[in-house]
């Protein structure tokens, strides 16, 4: 796979939500810039981790890629075809499937597992009716759900098994890309490990590309080839997982990495932690210049006025005016 042949490409993608007041005569009171100029590419078979605090826009970015939230400007390209405004049931949408955070809310409680897996096959007329049961059994086997459980309903399964079913359902349409939004955040550690192993296996065996959204950096590092760090709707650092998480350059990535507690009592006590003051600023009223400057220990006056571009530095891309001075 070469980077010149991306399977998915985002070009200067923006998703803004107008904030309105009044029922009849709507008055615009502001704009939430949830995604504000994101350009990214995903190679075939690649796992791209997307990390950031809640409210940074990572879920909105995922929803915009999927076409679930309309893009304000910019475009999404799938294998060289612009799919930004593609219809929800079209061929382009089939290639992109999503796994959501909460496996309790993302399955229809009134459909048995077998029915839930058969539904997308019928809707997209992917298989003749006679072949559907065999394909359903194949999908269940792929994610480790026993065939005898296909008649059961979602409430009869544990959280980890439900997430397996949700993954099988995403796989039903033979997608080339899976977008997984915090797929293990709601699960216990030991169950998390099962789902992470399953995702890694599927990427390996089916040649899938994966956009993996999580706030747990150790989980992201374990699974991803590359990592993008988001802050207030923009990407602030993008590079290989090892570079970004083990040798972070952007002041925000450094703070984020240092905030992750490590299960090592001696190391944990000796470590100097960068504790960020305050909460992330509201995307409704973002700071001028670099969005991180109010919480940044290195900010200068120029950071308050200039929006730093994402530029190559130390083998990855960083959006910080002072990165060369502070590293």
């Amino acid at each position, binding site marked *: 796979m070469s980077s010149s042949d991306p399977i998915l490409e985002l070009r200067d993608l923006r998703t803004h939500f107008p904030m309105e007041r009044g029922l009849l005569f709507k008055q615009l009171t502001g704009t939430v810039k949830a995604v504000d100029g994101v350009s990214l590419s995903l190679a075939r078979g690649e796992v791209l981790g997307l990390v950031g605090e809640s409210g940074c826009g990572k879920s909105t970015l995922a929803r915009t890629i999927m076409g679930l939230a309309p893009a304000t400007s910019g475009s999404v390209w799938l294998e060289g075809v612009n799919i930004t405004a593609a219809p929800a049931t079209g061929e382009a949408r089939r290639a992109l499937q999503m796994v959501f955070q909460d496996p309790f809310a993302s399955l229809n409680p009134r459909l048995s597992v077998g029915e839930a897996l058969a539904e997308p096959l019928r809707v997209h007329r992917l298989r003749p009716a006679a072949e559907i049961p065999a394909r359903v059994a194949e999908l269940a086997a792929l994610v480790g759900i026993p065939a005898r459980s296909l008649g059961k309903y979602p409430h009869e399964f544990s959280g980890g098994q439900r997430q397996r079913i949700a993954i099988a359902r995403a796989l039903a349409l033979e997608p080339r890309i899976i977008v997984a939004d915090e797929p293990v955040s709601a699960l216990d550690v*030991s169950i998390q490990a099962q789902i992470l192993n399953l995702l890694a296996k599927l990427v390996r065996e089916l040649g899938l590309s994966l956009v993996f959204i999580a706030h747990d950096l150790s989980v992201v590092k374990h699974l991803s080839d590359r990592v993008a760090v988001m802050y207030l709707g923009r990407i602030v650092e993008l590079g290989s997982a090892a570079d970004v998480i083990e040798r972070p350059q952007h002041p925000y990535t450094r703070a984020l990495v240092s905030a992750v507690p490590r299960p090592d009592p001696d190391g944990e006590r000796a470590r100097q932690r960068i504790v960020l003051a305050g909460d992330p600023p509201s995307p409704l009223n973002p700071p001028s210049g670099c969005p991180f400057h109010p919480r940044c220990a290195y900010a200068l006056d120029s950071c308050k006025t200039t929006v730093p571009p994402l530029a190559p530095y130390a083998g990855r891309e960083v959006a910080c005016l002072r990165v060369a001075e502070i590293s």
Partner: protein
Amino acid sequence: MHLLDVSELHTRFHTRSGVFRAVTNVSFSLERGETLGLVGESGSGKSVTCASLLRLLPSPPARIEGNYARFDGVDLLRASDAELRAIRGKRIGMIFQDPMTSLNPYMRISEQLIEPLLIHEKISRRDALARALAMLESVGINDAARRLHSYPHEFSGGMRQRVMIAMALIARPELLIADEPTTALDVTVQAQILELIKKLQRELGMAVIFISHDLGVVSGLCDRVMVMYAGRIVETADVRSLFKSPQHPYTRALQRSIPALQAKGTELYTLPGLPPDLSKPIAGCSFAERCEFATAACRTGESPAVLASAPAHAHACLRAHAGEILTANEH
């Protein structure tokens, strides 16, 4: 004397579908100023243990039994309601997991903060408000004077959790029970809250019981750790020996399943099966069904007792006690 001394605590829920043994035979003690971590998966009985000590569970369906649970000499299991009320919120503070649902949406933050002071101390409203303001500032709420009279919905999740912490600490408790206080928060906010708990602990000299499923958080904060599985304690040790030489197969499995401790791309260890159904009696060790080391002896008789294997290290595994399982260091 221990600050808290719990002996053979049992909590059962009597429901229509049977008796659910949420907590079985839990004994532990805690010194003043000590931080005890309580680790385990959902449903392992961590929260129920602490809620039982404060008698916060409705009865029926809950039935709490035990030898005793002495807090500074007072048996919490047998104390009268009046005695308990004098302790809860004053000498023992509690932070609940979910900051979104644990604050009263109809009450201003100021009213909720001074409530424990007005109830437990002879203090004027004005002095109470002054202390509430000081407390809000010390938990790191910017512009506290203006925000004091806000309603909970005007605060973000991290700020609400800080308000919960301020409420639990305002009466300067001797013991703080923190039930997953940072689980719902971002890592950056989590780091702020953990620093805050450590700082206040130094200042007030209080003991902390910290419930968490995150081994990373526990390793940085706690002096001692108890691991729970299926309502029982399976291992208890000082934090260093728990991480360096875990003895019980369940503790080891937990560590092997965390991505942070494993090289990238390696298959993570996964436990086969599910935790046992606590409404049915379990013969022998409750972990045996999922344990790679279990033998026939593990599946019969009484549940193995928690016995010391080294100073300040105890666990409930028959085979590890018999020296039949190599520890990680001996590989």
